[in-house]
């Protein structure tokens, strides 16, 4: 177990800068998720921590010790790759025991550890199989088993679930989380799936174009996104965002007045802003802003409506079922406490 600290990390491939000075402290035992769109540099950052990429500038410390110059093999980390990277010529047992074997541990200690990991991951019946004889989900578990037998300082995961089908992904998500609660090993987990990030993380670092946009606990990011990018990245379906202007304690937009609570009182009158409101905070009401239903998508427990206010489509999430159909008029009454305002130019939260 250990803390991890990135300070002012920069990375360039040739002349192309990819990471622009990332600083991030991960506490001992924390489950940190790096999330962001494809190509934002999450894997690169993780691979630098693993010692698989050089560090262009800045430093990385594990447990207070700078590891910039340390080989992967000396960093005492374990990594689960997206492709699993199981050794094809070794059985599940040999795959899982490989790192211990390299450390020249005693044979019965290796046996013991592998058996223990196999039990946690339900891999007992497959120990003598080769990776090619396993399903995707089983391979994924072997890859995790290979990591946990080592009892490393830090676990690294690079999109470990993206090759699984939706149902298995959800199941493995809770398995990994349960595993973390049990082992309490510091974990850095990379994903581009914000649902994975929200459900698994202690804290999330939202990355975009080589920078961290916001760092915080999942619900913090959800409730108080620091900027437009985070607002639209976190949450599914995504937040409704449209242009407006502050006028008399509300925002005029799409030909209507949208209520908002201003943290910074005054000085905003007339300013151009982006108004953001999550679909579930747009519940239909008996009066308010008029909208016309375009599409109704019942999902059982809740119903998703696509509505039009003026010419703009918005998404509305209502609890329970809706009897409304396309063409019906409804009223929206957004809760001012759940409205988000962003500066139109900088995209920063107001």
């Amino acid at each position: 177990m250990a803390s991890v600290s990135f300070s002012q990390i920069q990375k360039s491939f040739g002349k192309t800068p990819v990471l622009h000075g990332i600083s991030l402290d991960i506490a001992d035992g924390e489950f940190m998720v790096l999330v962001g769109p494809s190509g934002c540099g999450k894997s690169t950052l993780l691979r630098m921590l693993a010692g698989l990429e050089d560090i262009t500038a800045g430093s990385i410390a594990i447990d207070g010790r700078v590891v910039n110059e340390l080989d992967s093999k000396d960093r005492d980390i374990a990594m689960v790759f997206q492709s699993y990277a199981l050794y094809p010529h070794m059985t599940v047992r040999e795959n899982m025991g490989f790192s211990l074997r390299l450390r020249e541990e005693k044979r019965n200690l290796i046996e013991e550890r592998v058996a223990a990991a196999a039990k946690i991951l339900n891999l007992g019946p497959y120990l003598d199989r080769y990776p090619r004889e396993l399903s995707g989900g089983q391979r994924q578990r072997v890859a995790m088993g290979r990591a946990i037998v080592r009892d490393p300082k830090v676990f690294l995961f690079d999109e470990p679930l993206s090759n699984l089908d939706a149902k298995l992904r959800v199941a493995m998500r809770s398995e990994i989380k349960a595993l973390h609660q049990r082992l309490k090993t510091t974990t850095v987990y990379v994903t581009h799936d914000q649902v994975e990030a929200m459900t698994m993380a202690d804290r999330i670092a939202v990355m975009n174009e080589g920078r961290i946009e916001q760092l915080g606990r999942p619900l913090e990011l959800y409730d108080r996104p620091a900027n437009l990018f985070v607002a639209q990245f976190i949450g599914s379906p995504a937040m409704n965002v449209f242009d407006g202007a502050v006028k008399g304690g509300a925002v005029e937009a799409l030909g209507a007045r949208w209520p908002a609570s201003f943290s910074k009182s005054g000085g905003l009158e007339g300013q151009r802003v982006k108004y953001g409101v999550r679909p579930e905070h747009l519940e239909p009401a008996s009066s308010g802003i008029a909208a016309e239903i375009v599409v109704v998508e019942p999902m059982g427990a809740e119903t998703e409506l696509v509505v039009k206010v003026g010419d703009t489509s918005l998404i509305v999430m209502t609890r329970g079922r809706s009897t409304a159909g396309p063409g019906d008029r409804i009223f929206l009454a957004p809760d001012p406490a759940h409205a988000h305002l962003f500066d139109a130019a900088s995209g920063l939260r107001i």
Partner: protein
Amino acid sequence: MSAIAIPHPPLAPKRGLSTWQTWGLILLAPYVLVFLVFVLYPVSYGLWLARHPESYKTLFEDPVFFTTVINTIFFLLVAVNLKFILALYLSGFFVHERRWIRWLSVIFIIPWAVPAIPTVYSIRFMLNPEWGVVNSLLFRWFQIDGPNWLTDPQLAMAMAMLVHIWKALPFWTLILMAGRLAIPKELYEAASVDGASAWQKFKYVTWPSMRTLYVTSTLLSLIWTLGDFNSVYLLTGGQPADKTHVLATLGIRYIRLDQLDHAMATIVVALPFVLPMVYFMMKRLSGDEQKTS
């Protein structure tokens, strides 16, 4: 193997062959013809020439033959293995993604790409003890008389092996490079994270993936090297005193002596070496592959 679904044309009424089958035979005919004319006929003719038991008796009694067999075995064991160890090592170097290594690899391919006869002859001239460039330079730089490269039988054999390795190394390096490039990079990364040293990565990742290719290539190379006539004949011509022949060149010696039946007999004598290797290799290529890959 999964069955490939070929759309069956409507079956013709039962009257001899269907059009489908007729076309099959027509398309097959050229291959059968080529096989008959270029494989079956010459092989049978050769066996026919080599049918007399006396040919073998004189062959076995010829002292040159005995030396040749020893030379051949020695040549195969040393040259092929040395070549493959070098190729395995060099393939690991050339797979690095550096621009200068790319360029170097292009230069490295040249010996394989150039025609054999002029190059081996020029090596022969270079190694001439009196006026060859090698010994001239040795004398000029170190004031020593170079050895008789091609007139000392052992040294001449060693030189022939060297020429063979120099000529064939690029090809096998390329083949083994292809094998290395087929290994996913993540396996090496996983091994690094698992704590493997460079040697351990070779032992546990590279070698298990390459073993089949390596052994199969070695077998193939053994067969080809057994038939490598150029490196020996063009360099030493079997000289001095017919002491540097291998089976491939011995046939030519007999043909020159107008003993066609002996020439054929040398080839037949090589068959007990070649056929098991061909069989073993075909077996590896067809069956074993699935088990190890």
